[in-house]
């Protein structure tokens, strides 16, 4: 198994939207590598003919009655928003400057 480099951790952090500090990259690179080496042993027993389990108690087609019931009030949503303007969430610009 290849080991996890500092550059790999930087890439993972970017995918996970975590702006890690340089010292964090060094710290986590070693720790994540140890964890991944340890958990990789699942492949020792995961033979081709074993079906995967995604849910412990399988259920399919779960429906509830289609009736109107009170939802969350918009004012409560607005009160919890980090920024609210003109009855909408205010968000930072969505396009990068290129």
């Amino acid at each position: 198994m290849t080991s996890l480099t500092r550059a790999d951790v930087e890439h993972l952090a970017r995918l996970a939207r975590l702006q890690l500090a340089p010292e964090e990259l060094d710290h986590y690179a070693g720790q994540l590598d140890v964890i991944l080496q340890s958990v990789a042993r699942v492949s020792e027993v995961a033979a081709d003919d074993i079906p995967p389990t995604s849910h412990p108690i399988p259920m399919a087609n779960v429906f509830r009655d289609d009736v109107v019931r009170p939802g969350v009030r918009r004012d409560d949503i607005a009160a919890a928003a980090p920024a609210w303007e003109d009855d909408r969430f205010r968000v930072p610009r969505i396009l990068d400057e290129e």
Partner: protein
Amino acid sequence: MGIIGADLVRQDAATLARAMAEGEVSSEEVTRAHLDRIGEVDDRVHAFLQVLSTEALDAARDIDRRRAAGEQLGPLAGVPIAVKDVLTMTGVPTTCGSRVLEGWRPPYDSTVVERLRAGGLVILGKTNMDEFAMGSSTEHSAYGPTHNPWDLERIPGGSGGGSAAALAAFEAPLAIGTDTGGSIRQPAAVTGTVGVKPTYGGVSRYGLVALASSLDQAGPCARTVKDTALLHAAIAGHDPRDSTSIQAPVPDVVAAADEADVRGMRIGLVRELRGEGYQAGVSQRFDEAVAILTDLGAEVVEVSCPHFEYALAAYYLILPSEASSNLARFDGMRYGLRMGDDGARSVEEVMSLTREAGFGAEVKRRIMIGTYALSSGYYDAYYGSAQKVRTLITRDFEAAFAQVDVLVSPTAPTTAFRIGDKVDDPLAMYLNDIATIPVNLAGNAAMSLPVGLAPEDGLPVGLQIMAPPMADDRLYRVGAALEAALVDRWGHLLIEEVPAL
């Protein structure tokens, strides 16, 4: 013994409920006694992130009024309870032990909280936890660790260390925990209290902030098996708002606790969950408890679950994978923390700065592990293989339950360790859950109850009982029988031996 003149905070929930029903004491008096106790000791224990004094006293007086008016109330009406800070409660901050949710006031009640209110229970406050329930020591709370009432220098377990410590410090007779890999059972074990992870889907997850959706399960915590059963019955049952909620009657856990009879039951010792790696005093108290079960008329046999040794590895792939996608919602856009929104930075930069500032080290580690395990090229080797191991573990349980009614093991490999000992050693921390994780992967029900103090350090040891899905009643049948035999031997509950704070 009458309740008048007794120390109210040392009574169990069943005793308090009976005394209130008979008019010997009011819910307001009981609630005030617990709030006073919290005021006295919680600066040292730090079980609570939020104490709801006004709301609790209002709720208690309401119950007293309704009782006086002759209303039929639930079996736990007026009894105070502590709720882990991962369940939403309208208008009350719900932080999940994280900075990213500091000050967030949810606009709705979780189903568990709704049922507590409907049952007339009095919510005292929200308890401390490892951030987003990731941890086994409550040291990963952004608001500081909780201290174990048996030794304030030691951890109370995790992630539900706040709920367990509140019970052991007599700050509440009941508490709600959540258990994704052992977060109810391991804290119960190291604090000398009782905790149950119900069958997956037995208690609604609606309003439980998700860590790993296929593993998370809320459940009851208390100081006695009977109290745990009463709370289990109050919160369990089908909820149409949770699509994984089981549409079947709740097993009669209260009757099972009352029967407390193991005669003729077959009990399996899991060969892979004992011996090497378990502290000597843990093994000793466990073996003694098993001998008691034999004396009580159970037939004890050894069974093998050969794939359990892979459970920890599978869990630490499945959990981070699910967590990394569940925690994507904390992006600083609709609620919670937002950092660096200076008008110049892009949404992506603001998200990354928010998550960097809002999440602690363990959460970041697991998000990155999950991101790695789910990425193309690694998915089959990691996440796919872990899901297959999950099947193998379920098959191990099925084979074992074809031979026996319940399985037993020590709940945790050691007693409570010192605060700081494992906080930056993730693998050492993960090993605390080695005996509790298989149950979560398979969806079974399990209980931890105290079986003594380890001779080498005088700290509590827990025994785990595991039952098949939807056979939660068997936990209570066995747990209550064992508890009664231990009380006979000691003359009191183990928790009575906790040092005065």
